[in-house]
């Protein structure tokens, strides 16, 4: 693995002969962003399609409790964060299937409960507060090679899944009975997608922070929608906007000392504003 990273670093030295990309931590941050931002974009397209932004927010905030639990029991908080995120996603999906309360109400209840649980743990153990700021705002500059490796594996697995099921997910999001009529196992896809979303959100928190991760899922696809006329453009524009925001945000944060997560989202929001104006001008 070490030799693989050494090769990647030397390739990056040739491809990016800029001062911001000279240090090792910036190369690692660059790699992580190159992977996590398109991953967020392709999952985000379906989040927008399924209207799951609030769901995603609930998962990202549940990470707070996942981390607190990990710190409390002395387990790797990154692991407890991902597992807790998946459990919350499954919990919401299960509740939805058995209740006729509106989806946002169910999510609201889960949201509040998990946050309260997290605050309860943290307030009881004062020493935990410091570690949490890393997760609140994200800290891609301290990302490790092991974490990048996890992201690479996730990237490959999720990209393959999305490629195989993209059309079906899109149709399920458009209209569930219609998807059912075409023999698409909608419920199974919903569960798998909820798990994938939970994993991407919690893994992305290291880079963007739990406060802003949903923005990286939602804003690039939203910008893409402003300027797309068909499904193909929607996909590629989302990907491009995510990459541009990620890389530009990283470079800006290097020169200005702004938190990387925040500068990425600010660039993404600027893209949204520009595409919104372009869309208005076209009408």
């Amino acid at each position, binding site marked *: 693995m070490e030799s693989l990273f050494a090769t990647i670093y030397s390739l990056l030295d040739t491809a990016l002969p800029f001062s911001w990309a000279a240090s090792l931590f910036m190369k690692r941050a660059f790699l992580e962003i190159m992977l996590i931002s398109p991953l967020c974009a392709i999952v985000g397209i379906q989040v927008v399609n399924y209207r799951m932004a609030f769901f995603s927010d609930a998962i990202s905030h549940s990470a707070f409790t996942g981390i607190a639990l990990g710190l409390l029991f002395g387990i790797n908080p990154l692991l407890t964060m991902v597992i807790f995120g998946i459990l919350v996603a499954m919990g919401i999906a299960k509740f939805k299937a058995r209740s006729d309360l509106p989806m946002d109400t169910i999510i609201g209840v889960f949201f509040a409960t998990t946050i309260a649980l997290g605050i309860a743990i943290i307030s009881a153990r004062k020493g935990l507060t410091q570690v949490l700021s890393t997760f609140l705002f994200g800290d891609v500059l301290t990302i490790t090679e092991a974490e990048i490796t996890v992201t690479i594996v996730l990237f490959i697995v999720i990209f393959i899944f999305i490629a195989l099921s993209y*059309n079906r997910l899109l149709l399920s999001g*458009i209209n569930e009975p219609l998807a*059912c009529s075409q023999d698409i196992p909608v419920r199974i896809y919903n569960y798998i997608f909820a798990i994938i979303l939970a994993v991407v959100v919690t893994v992305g928190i290291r880079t963007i922070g739990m406060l802003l991760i949903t923005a990286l899922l939602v804003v690039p696809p939203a910008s893409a*929608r402003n300027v797309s006329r*068909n499904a193909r453009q929607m*996909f590629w524009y989302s990907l491009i906007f995510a990459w541009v925001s990620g890389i530009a945000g990283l470079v800006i944060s290097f020169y200005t000392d702004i938190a990387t997560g925040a500068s990425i989202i600010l660039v993404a929001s600027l893209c949204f504003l520009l595409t919104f104006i372009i869309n208005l001008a076209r009408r």
Partner: protein
Amino acid sequence: MAETAIELVNVSVTVNQAPLLKNVSASIPKGRITALIGPNGAGKTTLILAILGVIPHEGEIFFLRDGRREITRPRIGYVPQRLDFDRGLPLTVLDFLTLSSQRRPLWLGYQQAKKNRALEALREIGVEHLRGRQIGRLSGGELQRVMLALAISRDPEILLLDEPAAGVDVSGEVLFCEFMTRVQREGHLTMLIVSHDLSIVTGHAEHVICLNRTVQCQGGAPEVLTPENIMAVYGPHAGLYRHGQDTRPGASATCVHPLHYK
């Protein structure tokens, strides 16, 4: 008696302790047009959704081939009453049709064969000119016709239509009428149609199921479509409309543009 395509045995659907359907037992004949009629809230859409497997039900729904109950479901084309979807979605009509037939993700382009089939279906319904339009920008009537094209593009064995002519303009109605006549003539397709349009029911249906939470009557169209039954389902004004008309299946299936009556 025609061969049965779908057999419903004691199908009940209960949502929040409210019974939407109770012990519905009926057979839908193969290769025929069956009309599902009943007052508002009778459970017609619920029954269609139960057949599709969208909502859980008690009892059994069997699909039959050569008189035998099939394990695998046949290909179904479905046109919902109203397609609720996100109208801002950047999806063209051609995207929409290929979306359901091809596995290759749409962002890698169309598969030629799937694209051709989609275009053929659009042509068949007379809406090929809409291929590049976004589905969210179609009028109600255009969308219904695109939905019908989507349903037939799957080369279905069974077609489930839930108020397919609702919101369709006059030229759309003529086109729809012609489509029904063609289906009837070819006789390959089993069709279950929910309609409040009496002319569609009297003009095309060969078999009729009257539903009001449970089956009120079923059988061949001439036997079931009595003035009493029509009055019960469609209200007193329907009787005037029907007065003097021949209710034999296909009797009023001449697809004439109403403006030509002048």
